[in-house]
Each structure stands twice: as structure tokens, then as C-alpha cells.
């Protein structure tokens, strides 16, 4: 039987060995403060992204072109809410407080993925978001199912199953539009032009400028580097674009037989920085909308508590009644 650790040094060794063996860290285990802080930040930002991510597509629910598309889009947006909830739940196992995290999101002190600061101008955007944005998210998320932090990995398994529906409904929507009129095909191309580069930015800065990657990989909370995942996404997406009949807006995009990968042009990190810093097209609107929803719901949360308290106090509704 493995001896249980007793000193601080032994705790660290035990933690390191657990990760080295590919085992999971669970909520009540000892963990370095920096690991805990990193995991809370990572999970919270991911949760915020899911919650804010409801908005760009939610805008289109009332204007869906058919009942079928509307039902699909509602289900998808509901999934995003669910993903946010799974993730806040995982963050809470680390001692974070959900209300506190929401407070930091609506006060702008914590960020979410910059991809959601771009507007959705046409219904083709719904399809392109499913295809490219959710496709990129899947590339990022599948390896996270093996995150060293147990609750996060388990949430990611659940999320990945659902993301597959998101990507496929998007691609199917685009295929339908590409079979339609010239104007519809142009909408798809236009949406692709607008979302292609922001999707590549989702993988984060080049490895050379990612000082945290090494630590995150050592901890098993990140499994591949930003550039590896970006390349994987490009390689997966090019044949899908060909099949769809859209052109990815990159003149440098070309198969490199020597590398066995597609080469692609440089990402405009200045734009990325500007969007993250709050100067994207929709930053202020997204946060204001989230804050309004939270504030407008305050009376509901309080009323539900009051109802629960009154209900619990009533003798005929006591738990052991009957």
C-alpha cells in the first residue's frame, strides 16, 4: 500500500506522481496553490465563454428561417447555457464561488473568448459559427477530456458529445444554403470570410509567445500547444471548405507535401489584441446584455428563495410528512 503523505514535500511529490501516472486530481486532494488558481481561471473563463456564447446566435432565434431551424437553434443555445453550468459546477469544486465569478464577468474583470465579440450579421453566420467556431472549440476541447483535473475532464466529455451536434447542424445548414440561390451562396462565403481568421485566433498566440504553455502541459491541464491545435484545425477544415464550395480567405493557404500539412498565412494578432482589450465590435454589448439579464433576474432569485423558505416552514410540507 502506498504510504499517505505527511509533510508538505511529500504532498507535492504525491501530487506530481499522480499527474505523472496520468491519474486525476480530485477536488479534495492537496494541490499547489498555483494549480488551483490556474484551474479556476481556466474553467471560469471557459464557463464565461459558453454563457456569453449564447448571445451571437441567440439573436437569430426569433428570425430563424423555418421551424426546424428554430428548434435546432434553441436546442443549441440551451446547450451553451448547459455547458456554462457544467463548468461553473466544476469551478466550484475548487472553492470558487459562482456568484463571485458571475460578478467578475459582468464587471469586466474576467474575460471570455474574443470570438464572441464579433457580430452575427446573417443567418449564414449561425452555420459558420457551428462549422468553424464550434469546430475550433472541438479541437481545443477534445484533449481537455484528459485534463488532470477530474471534474473539468468529466465536464469536457459531456460537452464534447454535445459540440458534435453543434458542428454538424452548422455544416448541414451551410450545405443547404450552398444548394440555394446565388445570394445565399454569397452569404455563406461572406460569413466564412469574416469568421475564418477569428477562428484561427481562438487557439491563442504562437507557441513562442505562450509562456504559460510549458507549466500547463507539465500539469496536464493542456495537452497540445496552440500551434499544434491550430494546424490540426486548418488541416481538418480545408477539405470541408472544398466540399462545401467556399473559399477560405487566405491566399497563402496551400498543401505542403513535405510537412504533410497545410501552410497558412500569418494571423493578425494586433486585431486579436484590440478585440480582447475591449475594442471588438460587440464587447460592450455582450457584457451589458449579460449584466442586464443578471440584474433583471435578481427578483426571481429572491422570490424563489422566499417561496422555498415559506414552503419549508409549512408543517404539511415538511420533508418527513407522509
Amino acid at each position: 500500500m502506498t504510504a499517505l503523505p505527511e509533510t508538505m514535500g511529500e504532498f507535492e511529490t504525491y501530487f506530481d506522481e499522480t499527474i505523472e501516472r496520468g491519474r486525476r486530481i480530485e477536488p479534495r486532494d492537496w494541490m499547489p496553490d498555483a494549480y488551483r488558481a490556474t484551474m479556476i481561471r481556466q474553467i471560469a473563463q471557459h464557463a464565461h465563454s459558453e454563457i456569453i456564447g449564447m448571445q451571437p446566435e441567440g439573436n437569430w432565434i426569433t428570425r430563424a428561417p423555418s421551424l426546424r431551424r428554430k428548434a435546432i437553434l434553441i436546442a443549441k443555445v440551451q446547450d451553451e447555457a448547459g455547458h456554462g453550468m457544467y463548468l461553473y459546477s466544476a469551478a466550484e469544486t475548487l472553492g470558487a464561488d459562482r456568484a463571485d465569478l458571475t460578478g467578475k464577468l459582468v464587471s469586466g474583470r474576467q474575460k471570455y473568448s474574443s470570438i464572441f465579440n464579433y457580430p452575427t450579421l446573417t443567418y449564414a453566420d449561425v452555420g459558420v459559427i457551428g462549422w468553424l467556431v464550434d469546430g475550433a472549440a472541438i479541437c481545443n476541447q477534445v484533449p481537455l477530456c484528459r485534463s488532470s483535473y477530474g471534474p473539468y475532464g468529466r465536464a469536457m466529455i459531456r460537452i464534447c458529445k454535445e459540440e458534435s451536434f453543434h458542428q454538424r447542424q452548422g455544416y448541414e445548414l451551410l450545405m443547404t444554403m450552398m444548394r440555394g440561390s446565388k445570394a445565399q451562396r454569397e452569404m455563406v462565403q461572406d460569413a466564412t470570410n469574416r469568421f475564418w481568421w477569428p477562428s484561427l485566433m481562438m487557439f491563442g498566440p504562437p507557441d513562442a509567445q505562450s509562456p504559460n504553455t510549458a507549466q500547463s502541459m507539465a500539469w496536464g491541464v493542456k495537452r497540445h500547444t496552440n500551434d499544434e491545435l491550430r494546424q490540426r484545425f486548418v488541416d481538418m477544415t480545408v477539405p470541408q471548405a472544398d466540399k462545401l464550395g467556399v473559399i477560405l480567405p487566405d491566399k497563402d493557404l496551400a498543401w505542403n507535401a513535405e510537412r504533410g500539412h497545410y501552410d497558412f498565412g500569418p494571423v493578425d494578432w494586433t486585431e486579436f489584441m484590440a478585440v480582447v482589450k475591449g475594442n471588438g465590435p460587440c464587447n460592450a454589448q455582450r457584457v451589458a446584455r449579460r449584466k442586464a439579464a443578471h440584474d433583471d433576474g435578481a427578483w426571481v432569485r429572491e422570490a424563489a428563495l422566499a417561496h422555498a423558505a415559506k414552503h419549508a416552514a409549512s408543517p404539511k410540507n415538511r420533508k418527513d410528512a407522509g
Partner: protein
Amino acid sequence: MTKETFTAEGGHGAVPVSDAPVEPAAASVRSDWPLYEVFLRGKRGLNHVHVGSLHAADPQMALHHARDLYTRRNEGVSIWVVAATDITASSPDEKDPFFAPAGDKVYRHPTFYEIPDDVPHI
């Protein structure tokens, strides 16, 4: 460019690593709904298994939320919700030899006993 650094370790991509600190905070607002842990029976014949948690004003609301959150695709046929504060858990604490009693009782396992290969059905 600033010195701000970014990471894409989370699911939806690049976010700054210099956000507001997120150290565990026990403080909770008065109007917070309590935390419930959720257990699902995936199908008949299986045990209920822990799937996560959620906040709700009371157990009935917790059940409804659990249905919406954890069974959107027929993942369960039965749900338990338990107030998180009502759960008593063993501790992974270093001084706690909680599981030690089982550690040295190898005779509780069938493989402890040597039986000749030619004895059938055992």
C-alpha cells in the same frame, strides 16, 4: 503590443492570463441559491451516479433544473438531488488512515487462496 499574455488552454480559445484574481472565495451573497449535488440513474439496472451540481432555491427546483441540465438527451431515468451541505465525505487528509483497514487484508480476495488447476468450477 502590451505585455499581457494569453492562453488557449480553455475550451473556447484565447483569453488573457492576467484577469482578476480567482482565488477561492467563500463569500456568498444573501440571495444565492444553495448548492445541490446531482445523481442520475442512466437506465434501469444501474446505480445512481454523481454527475455534477447546480444551484436551486429548494429541492423541487433542484430536480427540475437537474432534468434540464443533465438529461437533455435521455441520459437518465431517475434523479436524486442532495443538498451539498448534507453530504459527509471521507477526507483525503494525510493523518487519516481511513482506508488502511482494507490494505492489509489480502485474504478477503479470492486470489489469496491457491487451488490446484484441476479442481473444476472454483
